[in-house]
């Protein structure tokens, strides 16, 4: 008997004809099992070509297609969703994974629901995945039933009489979207947002630092300095650090206790890039912070390119720019080159670690005084608790030791350090650091170089044996290494590049301007070794200058003054607009 539905008599007749030619019960047990669940109307709405085909048995066709089947046999089963979770079912003993699910999978709680990501969304909704799948199935089935034979479908059909183009959308009743499981991207975004906010304890923040990754080693780094500086002005709990590009953990002493760290990179891993940008932007906005500082976050730079104006409408954004880098081909790339001009008009200010970079930006972009005033140099503080290291005990039989430490990459010019060592066979060179270069790039180490391997912090080295600290980078800002070594009283011979001149003065260190010339480094080292007492006096002057110029108090005032909204400033902003 022909069922009457809101789809209309022509469709109803086609369904009846199709059912009439399907295989009778009792011939094939698998077919009979599937037939109990197979929804002919649902299937034909997806395969309209079969409506005018009087020979094909749709269920036989569906089962024969096995794991390759693209249509769904009933509204709550999706072959693609099932096999994405259980790929091994594609090669199972059954003719079709659908049979596997009907016989065993469904009872075992296996999920074949067509909605994207119920497992991810369930915790957001406060339920487990099974309960959510059950709710989705009930919702979908109820909707389908009411569309076919209820008032809902009657309204659909009546509208299709007014506007026949609506009738073509009957096919969409086979796959209704049920928010919040709107799409893979949306589910990923909502789940990641919820997870990140939960990690932040669902609390607002006054300052949000958005960093690439929780880089291990190297002491506080700029994000740590900023957080410590702010901690005398606010509760560290009001600072949030978001890692956007790479997961990991930061050293325990980088931040003051209470700073909240969020591993957004882990949450957006595998997410569509645009969706991840939006997720980060919404997360940032949700903190309602005084300031947001981008510390080299690639995802935030991308997000600012897409959503910059909208983000800037509510947030006080700052870019923290460090140096560009020279690529193997010789050309230069980096955040300052690529993003300063893209973002400058959007942000409240740009922060650099060196006056050198500030000047470079002003000059390159030909900024006027008003614009240049938005560039700020945060002069990293030194730690006055670092003790002066005693020089090696004078001993005519002892060979002098030159210390060098750093990441073994192109920037650090290992080749120069090796060449200096070759020119000084009477001196020992001890070099620390993990190599990211092959031996082929730097050549064999000379015999008087000992490779000491990785190090966690400069203080862990045997500094009392260091006669000279050698620094050979080809480019840099103000490296924390020089600030740390500068406090130990060890004489520093270092390349004069970027911001290093803001640490290494002519009167209290041995800056080398002729970077490519190993002889220049040798001359400076020999000058130190010739009169160690004079050299140590000069280095003490460096320490004294650093203590004067780079106090934690001044740094803290500068950072807080710029980043935190004061009541006075808010009042001014309110008056302005």
């Amino acid at each position, binding site marked *: 008997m022909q069922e009457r539905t809101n789809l209309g008599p022509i469709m109803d007749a086609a369904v009846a004809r199709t059912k009439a030619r399907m295989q009778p019960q009792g011939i094939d047990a698998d077919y009979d099992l599937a037939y109990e669940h197979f929804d002919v109307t649902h299937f034909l709405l997806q395969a309209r070509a079969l409506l005018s085909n009087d020979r094909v048995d749709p269920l036989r066709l569906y089962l024969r297609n096995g794991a390759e089947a693209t249509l769904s046999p009933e509204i709550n089963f999706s072959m693609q969703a099932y096999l994405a979770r259980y790929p091994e079912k594609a090669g199972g003993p059954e003719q079709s994974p659908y049979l596997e699910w009907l016989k065993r999978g469904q009872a075992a709680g296996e999920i074949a629901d067509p909605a994207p990501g119920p497992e991810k969304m369930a915790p*957001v*909704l406060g*339920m487990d995945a099974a309960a959510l799948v059950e*709710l989705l199935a009930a*919702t979908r089935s109820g*909707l389908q039933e*009411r569309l076919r034979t*209820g*008032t*809902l479908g009657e*309204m*659909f059909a*009546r*509208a299709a009489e*007014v*506007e026949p*183009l*609506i009738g*073509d*959308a009957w*096919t*969409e*009743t086979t*796959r*209704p*979207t*049920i*928010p*919040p499981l*709107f799409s893979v991207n*949306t589910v990923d*975004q*909502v789940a990641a*947002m*919820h997870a990140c*906010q939960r990690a*932040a304890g*669902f*609390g*607002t923040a006054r300052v949000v630092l958005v960093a690439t990754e929780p880089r291990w080693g190297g002491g506080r780094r700029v994000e740590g300095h900023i957080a410590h500086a702010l901690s005398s002005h606010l509760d560290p709990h009001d600072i949030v650090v978001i890692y956007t590009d790479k997961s990991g953990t930061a050293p325990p002493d980088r931040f003051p206790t209470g700073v909240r760290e969020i591993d957004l990179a882990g949450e957006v891993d595998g997410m569509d890039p*645009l969706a991840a940008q*939006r*997720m980060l*932007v*919404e997360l940032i*906005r*949700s*903190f*309602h912070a005084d300031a947001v500082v981008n510390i080299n976050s690639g995802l935030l730079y991308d997000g600012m390119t*897409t*959503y*910059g*104006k*909208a*983000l800037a*409408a*509510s*947030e006080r954004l700052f870019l923290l720019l460090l140096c560009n880098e020279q690529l193997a081909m010789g050309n230069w790339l980096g955040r300052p080159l690529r993003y300063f001009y893209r973002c400058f008009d959007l942000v409240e200010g740009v922060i650099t670690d060196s006056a050198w970079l500030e000047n470079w930006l002003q000059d390159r972009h030909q900024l006027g005084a008003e614009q240049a005033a938005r560039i700020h140099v945060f002069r990293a503080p030194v730690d006055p608790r670092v003790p002066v290291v005693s020089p090696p005990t004078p001993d005519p039989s002892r060979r002098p030791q030159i210390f060098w430490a750093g990441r073994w990459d192109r920037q650090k010019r290992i080749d120069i350090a090796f060449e200096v060592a070759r020119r000084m066979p009477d001196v020992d060179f001890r070099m620390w650091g993990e190599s990211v270069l092959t031996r082929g790039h730097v050549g064999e180490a000379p015999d008087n170089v000992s490779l000491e391997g990785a190090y966690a912090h400069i203080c862990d080295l045997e500094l009392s044996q260091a006669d000279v600290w050698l620094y050979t980078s080809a480019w840099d800002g103000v490296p924390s290494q020089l600030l740390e070594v500068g406090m130990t009283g060890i004489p520093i011979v270092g390349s004069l590049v970027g911001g290093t001149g803001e640490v290494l003065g002519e009167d209290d260190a041995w800056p080398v301007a002729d970077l490519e010339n190993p002889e220049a480094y040798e001359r400076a080292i020999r000058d130190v070794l010739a009169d160690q007492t004079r050299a140590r006096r000069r280095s003490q002057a460096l320490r004294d200058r650093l203590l004067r110029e780079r106090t934690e108090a001044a740094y803290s005032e500068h950072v807080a003054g710029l980043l935190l909204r004061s009541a006075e400033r808010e009042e001014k902003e309110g008056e302005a607009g």
Partner: protein
Amino acid sequence: MSTDLTVIVTAHDETAVCGPTMRAADLAVEAARGRGLTVQTVIGLDAPTEATSTYFRQPHFDHWERRVLHERELGRVRNALVPECDGRYIAFLDADDLFSENWLAEGVVALDAAAERGEHAIAHPELNVVFDGAKTMWLNIDQSSRLFTPHYLYFRHYYDSLCMAPREAHLEIPYVTRDVPNGLSYQDFQFTIESLAAGWRHVVVTDTIIFKRRRDVSLVTESNIRKSLVRALPAMAIDRVRDLGSTRR
């Protein structure tokens, strides 16, 4: 106030496409009147093109009040029309969309029922069907559903801009102006968030449908829309978002 409902169709440059729209609207108005409701019908013409003006001047639309505005923006048009309307409730319809024949009558029933329960409610159709240039279908989710999470509203709107609301809701929470050049858009989305925060209940009316006609949209327009955000709202702050929708008036 003697008028139960004001239906407002808004148009700017639409002409022939409004034929089915107006027919569906007339059928729904007739059905509502058949249930004893008084209905005011208004066509809001916003900076209409000559062709649109001519189209809506036709005598067979004379049973609709015609209002001409020059707001050039949907939100502002709605804001301008609401104070001049008579209805306890206001139902909007964009010129190229349709709603189901029962939407107006059932929407009023749902809002009246909410009022009797002491709730201040805003109604949405149950189903959103996109047709013509693209086809898709999604459910609108009632605020009381277990599928409702405020976190979704960071990324997507649970509802379409078509809704039925008490006049006072629109007077209390007018639509904001779009600022597309600065990436701030989605007035209806913002209306939902702000009304939720103000304690309005968003209810879905069973067995009702909005049919959204998807016409040709330029890639540039689509791209600009995708790059837009709802304004940053206090209600979406990390420490408040979980409470969104739990406020009672």
